[in-house]
Structure formats: structure tokens, C-alpha cells
């Protein structure tokens, strides 16, 4: 049984048909990447999984349990976290308070909470120095670290990452992908949405190509990197 599975999912924004029958499976322990051009429906897919959008057709399963009608705050409880597009840090909460919000469902008095916090600070030492700073005053890179850290504080089994490299300097992009690998190595399954297809495919096990709301290709990361269409359309290679 796959850990996460979308079966023929249709999602709408009012009359706009954004996902037109998307099927994706993510196995436990994998890094799966979802690539596609602007407006293809990548973020919509993640929002549907997280319960921010309710699909009008199809099904979403998590560990065999149907979750497509479950509200967003319940889905977090099941073990699916998201670091959303644009980071969406709470700007007027401090870094520590942002992380506390990630741990909203857990007691902040427990040892486990302190261990989680320590894990985040070990992954992102920069955040440790800035616990008292308001989220809105962090740099873009720091905000991305906080967004990922905050998602980890929910203790997810699956981490959904929506363009974590967006707007970051190349050094930082490198670093973020390294950290995604580390997080995965620590046992968290990752579904990674990226524009930066080359790098995403270099750390992923498998990948899906989304185009105008439908999956047009799926394969191992290796095969996708060598695929001619992918190279032309998404890797900028001729």
C-alpha cells in the first residue's frame, strides 16, 4: 500500500478546472518530485492533498485512509505537513512562535517538543540565532528555512514542499536540497514541487511531469533526466 495516493483527482477554483484527473503515488521513504511549468497545477495538487482544497472528483488516500473530505487541520494531525509556496511565515510572530505554531498539536512542555526544536535548529543553525526575531523581518532564505522547520515541528510522515528553492541564491539552493535529502534520510517521505527540475530530479527517486492539470509523464528520476521532452521543456537543455 502506498503511503500517499491520488486517484484521478479533479480540483476546481470556481469554474476553473485546475486538476484534470491527477493520479500520483508516493511510497514510504521516497522523495518524489512533481515538475511542470507555471500554472500547471503543482501547488493546486499540494493544496488538495493538504485539504485546503476539496476535489470535486477522485480520491486521495493516506496510509489507506481516504482523506479528500478531511479538513486541513485534521490532515496535519494524520501526518502530512506542507511548507507552502511563498513560505507563508506568520510575519508578526517571532521565529520561535512560528515554530510553536508548527507544534500546535503537541505539548510545548514535553521533551519531544524540545527534541523537535533541537532537530530544526541543528538542520538550520541560522534559526537558533534568530528565535526572537519577527518572522516578517527574516531574509527570503531564512524564511524558507523557517517554513520547512515549522512544517517539521508538526512531526510529519510526509512533507510536502512547494518550490523551496524559489528566489534563493545558488549556494542556498544547493543547501536546501541537501537538507531535503537529510530530512528524507531521517525517515520523512517527501513530495517535492520544483521549477528547478534538474536539481529536483537529482535528489528524487521518482518524478511526475504535470502539464495543464494532467500528468503527462511519470518515471524514475534517472529516466526523466534522460528523457528528451523533459530535457527540452524543463531542463533547459537542447
Amino acid at each position, binding site marked *: 500500500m502506498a503511503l500517499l495516493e491520488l486517484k484521478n483527482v479533479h480540483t476546481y477554483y470556481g469554474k476553473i478546472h485546475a486538476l484534470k484527473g491527477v493520479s500520483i503515488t508516493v511510497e514510504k521513504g521516497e522523495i518524489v518530485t512533481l515538475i511542470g511549468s507555471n500554472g500547471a497545477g503543482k501547488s493546486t495538487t499540494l493544496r488538495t492533498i493538504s485539504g485546503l482544497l476539496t476535489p470535486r472528483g477522485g480520491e486521495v488516500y493516506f496510509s489507506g485512509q481516504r482523506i479528500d473530505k478531511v479538513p486541513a487541520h485534521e490532515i*496535519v494531525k494524520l501526518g502530512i505537513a506542507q511548507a507552502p509556496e511563498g513560505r507563508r511565515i506568520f510575519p508578526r510572530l517571532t521565529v520561535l512562535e512560528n515554530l510553536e505554531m508548527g507544534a500546535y498539536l503537541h505539548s510545548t512542555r514535553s521533551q519531544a517538543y524540545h527534541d523537535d*526544536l533541537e532537530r530544526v535548529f541543528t538542520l538550520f543553525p541560522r534559526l537558533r540565532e534568530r528565535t526572537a526575531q519577527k518572522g516578517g523581518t527574516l531574509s527570503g532564505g531564512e524564511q524558507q528555512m523557517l517554513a520547512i522547520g515549522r512544517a517539521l515541528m508538526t512531526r510529519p510522515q510526509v512533507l510536502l514542499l512547494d518550490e523551496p528553492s524559489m528566489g534563493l541564491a545558488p549556494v542556498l539552493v544547493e543547501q536546501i536540497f541537501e537538507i531535503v535529502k537529510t530530512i528524507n534520510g531521517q525517515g520523512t517521505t517527501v513530495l517535492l514541487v520544483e521549477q528547478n527540475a534538474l536539481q529536483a530530479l537529482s535528489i528524487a527517486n521518482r518524478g511526475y511531469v504535470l502539464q495543464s492539470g494532467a500528468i503527462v509523464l511519470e518515471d524514475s528520476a534517472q529516466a526523466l533526466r534522460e528523457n528528451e521532452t523533459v530535457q527540452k521543456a524543463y531542463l533547459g537543455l537542447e
Partner: protein
Amino acid sequence: MAAEVKAQASSSSGQRSFTEVLRTVFGPVGQLILFIVGSALALSLVVVLLALLQIGARPDILTRALTILPQVIIDGLVRGFLFASIALGYTMVYGVLEFINFAHGEIFMVGGVVGAAVSLFLASSGLLAGMPGLLFVILVIAVGMVVSGALAVTVERVAYRPLRGAPRLVPLISAIGVSLVLQDLMRLMMTNTPLGFNARFNTPDFGPPIRLFEMNLGARPVPVILPPKALIFIVASVLMLIALNYLVNATRLGKAIRATAQDMPTASLMGINVNQIVALTFLIGGALGGAAGALFGLNVGTVNPYMGFIPGLKAFTAAVLGGIGNITGAMVGGVVLGFLEAFVASYLSLFTNGAFSGAAYADIAAFSILILILIFRPSGLLGEATTQKV
């Protein structure tokens, strides 16, 4: 090494130290005190200056102005805390939903009427006379808070939540409708019960006015007195504001309220049930409004179904004055507006030699402020610069 890491983790994290809690709670209260003292001083200075300007023509004017000054300041405090506690309801709901709950004045009114009903019940059953004052105050405030809080939550559930996501004007119109419905329902209920349209708010005897000190101005010393009801109003409001600051700034639920206000979908990604949080803000705002209504009724001695309209509008002005959506701002806006009004009400006729009656012009002063702020500083006194936005 491991031990060191642990120690670091706990010092940089979780358990907020006691001083930290004190700071987050009393920081805003300190800001409030600053504005109270500042407004009182600034307005007193204006009064003295105006008196000095006229002293040639009217030699006794300075003494007359100073004689009433302490009473005006007490009056300003009472009005200020009244506006502040109503304004919080507007501002908290605005902070979370970006929506002006125009029925909030009626939530306040209901608190007052419910308080009057309790007092009528106690009076007619003969319990009132022998009742300790403090117990009575706590009782009417508690009942006002519970009923108004529950009413606010119900209104949100029935009249606003189904409209979330609709164009902004739609819930606003719904709010105005709710406001009219509540007024007329309440009138219907009051006129068909022993309460009557103008219901008396009976109280036990709170004792004689408290003599604070005596001022030596001219011929004979003038006593400065604090009416017990004013004292009750001020103490109760201050306690509520401190409790609210603690709740919003230092508790997990308070942080969830702030997170929801800042970014609702992302808050739900944290596992926060945002519908519950919205209901909670209506509950808190409604309870504060209800308490203010009960205190107001207790203070003026009578309530009616339309009494929420003007205080509601003024509290809205106070919320805008402080920066709508900003909790400390609502309190600051409330006290500043209260002081302004009290000063205009008391001194206008003195300085215009009776040409204008201050009491009649106080409302004009309040609403002129609203218009001026909307034109010149729509973000309010504390506006964006503050860290205290919900």
C-alpha cells in the same frame, strides 16, 4: 556535548520565563498607561493655556477650570475604558476576518439589558438590598459576559460564517441587519416584561463617594471625589484588559488567534481549527462587550434597546483611531477618545462663555476625529509601526 545541546535547547525555547510573560502582558498595558498619562497631561495643558489666554477678561477662569479638572480626568477615564472595552470586539474580529461587525454595539447593549434584568430580579426578590456590592458587580458582569459572548458566537455562526468568501459588502450588510434585528427583538422583549423600554439598573448601595484629596485653590479647599461606580468601572476594565493581553500574547490559544489573523490558510496547515478560532474571537469580543454593557448600565442607572448605537460607533472610532486590527491600539484609541470627549464636554461651554454646550458637542468632537483620521492617518495612532497587531 549532548547535555550542552539540551541546555541550549531549553533556554532558547519552550518554557517562557516569568519575566518574559510579564513583559508580553504588561508591555501593552504600559503603553496604555503612557497614553493615559500623556492624554491627560496634554489636554490639561491645553486647558491651562486656554484659561491663561482668557484670564485678562475673566480673572476667575483659571480657578474654575482647575476646580473641575480632576473630575474631568476621572470622567475621561471612565469613558475611555468604556470605549476601549467595546473597541476590542471590533478590532479582534477585524484582525481575524477583516470585517467590521456592526452588530457589536448591540452585543454591548444586550450585556447592559441582561445586567438590568438580573438587578430587577434581585430587587424584586428582595435580595438586592442586603447584597455585598462586590458580589453584585461580579454577578452582573459575569452574566453579561456569558450572554453577550454566546450571542456573538451565535451571530457569527448564523449570519456571518455562511457568507465567508462572499464579496466584502455582503457580510457587512448582514451585520447591519443583525444589528436592527437585535435592537427590535430586545425592544419587543423589554416592553413586554416588567423591564420596560427604559429599564432601571438597580444596584445595592456602594457607599459614599471616595474623597481622594483636597485642592487648595483660592478661597476654600475643593475636595476631589471618586464616585464608587466610576472606581468599579475603572478597576473592572483594567483587570479585563490585563487578562486579555495575557490571553492573546502569552497563551497557546492567543498565539493561534494571532496566527489565524495573519494567515488563515497557513494557520490551518499548522493544525489550527480556524473556524474554532474565529468563534473564539467572537466569544472574547462579545464577552468584553457584554461586560462593558453591564458596567455601563450599572454606571448610568438605566438601559434601553437602542443604547448600543452611539457607544458602538464611538468605540469603532476608537478602534480606527488606534489602528483597526491592533489590540493595544483599540485600548489606546479608546482612552484617547474618552479623554477628548470628556474635555470637550466639560470645557467647551466654559471657554466659549456658555455659547456652546459642551455635552451636546462631545459627539461632534468624537466623529470629527473619525473623519480626520480616515483622511489623514487611516492606519491609526499605532498603525503598522507596532508589533501588537493581533
